[in-house]
């Protein structure tokens, strides 16, 4: 069972739900932080890190001794990462998406492999929770290839929880792809609703089952509830604003440890996810 915790709008409580859900389940679980631009799950889970692996993208480097300046590499590249000049080929590794096209078309074998560091994947554990998370190098633009590397840590069988980045574009699609269920965490405000509508659209386009968690459910208005009713989106959990919870969160505490009620709340949430998705975890 792979559950992605996503939101559209940032700061609604994705990481809070993802980390607390993982810890509350009382069984071997995987937690993957796919918000590689601003990874936060480790701040709450505080796993013992075991490994940190640098992640590189394969980008081209032209061997001037073999290159005949035929221009085929420039022609196939959709991302302007190669420019054929009168006397040489210039490469722009930061623009390269690593599609491999230039390697395939060069008739002279002049395109050599070079590496661009895009970030790190860190793995570790805490109790029954296996953790893996990505950390994009500051200045690097492309999150999706790093997210794909984080997801290579998924081992089918145990429940897997993915903490997704905010938004609805390619890093979110890369995270959600292959999930069995998407939990959208929102708040009942105009911004929350607007971004929820976008997120629901994206999740539906991917054909994935989804459910809502409404956080700070008593601040704002009722329009998110109305929207959920109208679209027949199941609301799996509503969490009222609580200053003590906000303070515990601010300190980096796991709420299931500070507030016993959260343990039950998270277990119940997972049960509902299993029911709605019609799936179960193998024993």
């Amino acid at each position, binding site marked *: 069972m792979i559950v992605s915790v996503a939101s559209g709008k940032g700061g609604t409580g994705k990481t809070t739900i993802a980390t607390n859900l993982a810890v509350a389940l009382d069984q071997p679980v995987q937690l993957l932080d796919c918000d590689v631009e601003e990874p936060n799950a480790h701040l709450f889970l505080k796993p013992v890190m075991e490994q940190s692996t640098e992640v590189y993208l394969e980008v081209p480097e032209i061997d001037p001794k073999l290159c005949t300046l035929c221009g085929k590499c420039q022609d196939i590249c959709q991302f302007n990462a190669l420019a054929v000049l009168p006397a040489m080929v210039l490469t722009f590794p930061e623009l390269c998406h690593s599609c491999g096209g230039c390697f395939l078309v060069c008739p002279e074998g002049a395109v050599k492999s070079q590496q661009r560091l895009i970030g790190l994947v860190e793995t570790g554990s805490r109790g029954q929770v296996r953790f893996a998370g990505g950390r994009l190098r500051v200045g690097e633009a492309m999150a999706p290839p790093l997210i794909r590397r984080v997801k290579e840590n998924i081992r089918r069988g145990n429940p897997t929880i993915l903490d997704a980045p905010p938004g*609805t574009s390619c890093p979110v699609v890369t995270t959600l792809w292959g999930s069995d269920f998407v939990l959208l965490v929102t708040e009942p405000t105009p911004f929350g609703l607007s971004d929820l509508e976008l997120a629901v659209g994206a999740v539906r*386009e991917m054909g994935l089952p989804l459910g809502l968690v409404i956080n700070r459910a008593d601040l704002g208005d009722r329009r998110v509830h109305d929207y959920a009713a109208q679209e027949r989106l199941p609301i799996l959990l509503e969490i009222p604003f609580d200053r003590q919870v906000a303070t515990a969160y601010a300190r980096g505490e796991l709420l299931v440890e500070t507030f016993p009620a959260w343990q039950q709340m998270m277990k119940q949430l997972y049960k509902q996810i299993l029911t709605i998705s019609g799936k179960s975890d193998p024993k």
Partner: protein
Amino acid sequence: MKPPLNELVVLSGKGGTGKTSLVGAFAALADNPVLCDADVDAADLHLLLNPRIRERHDFYAGHKAAIDQEKCIRCGECLNWCRFGAIAEELTINPLLCEGCGVCWQLCPVQAVNFPDNLCGEWYISITRFGPLVHARLGLAEENSGKLVTLVRREARRLAEAKGSGWIITDGPPGIGCPVISSLGDATATLIVTEPTVAGQHDLERVAALADHFDLPAFVLVNKADLHKPTAQAIQQFCDHKGYPFLGHLPFDPDFTRAQVEGKTIMEYNNRKLHQLLTEVWERLSAAIQKRKAKES
């Protein structure tokens, strides 16, 4: 003489710290501004500014491949080439996974792959009660958000120059990746809005490092500071230590949400204390940016 044009980009790293609420306040406080929503993935500024759309444009960027099943001879070569897992065993392409690299299109031995231009979204020029707004809507699950950010910022700059405006206030995206990098080129300064939480502090450090990477001054403001004063203090110390000009602490105040529910900026909502605090923040920020700019030129 026309005033020099400044662009302030409001960022946060972490989402939900209050970027858009602050941009709304600055829209009300700045003299003759042009407004720009560069959070094209999940734009919200329009919900405070009630824009009347004057121009609507399609945004095309990149391509998506599609296999013409009648021409396809099922050699399966494309399946081996595609590094994005976008081609299924049955030789169909999933547009959600297609990166638009064109390798299958260019190398297919029987030219069975089409590669049409990709309509990724829309962008708009609108009128608001505070000035023009350039905003956009990226299509669902689309790519090319960086290019759309570049486009809306370029249009905002064009409008600002045409009307002799001194300020572009840009609402930036969360994170530090592609759209954020696109929101920084040629900006005058960035304001990082953070919150006093371990996550807010962690993310501030990364987005501030990104501003350094692009050699851009980064001002810092802690929102909801009273939710956890020790962390708010730690953030202030971090800024003092690193040389990021620190603009102060704003309280957690549900009036921000109440104003949002009414479609108002906080400056249009009856809360004197916040009006005073935000006016001071804007005066210090705008004066500091203008002073820096004067020093540069």
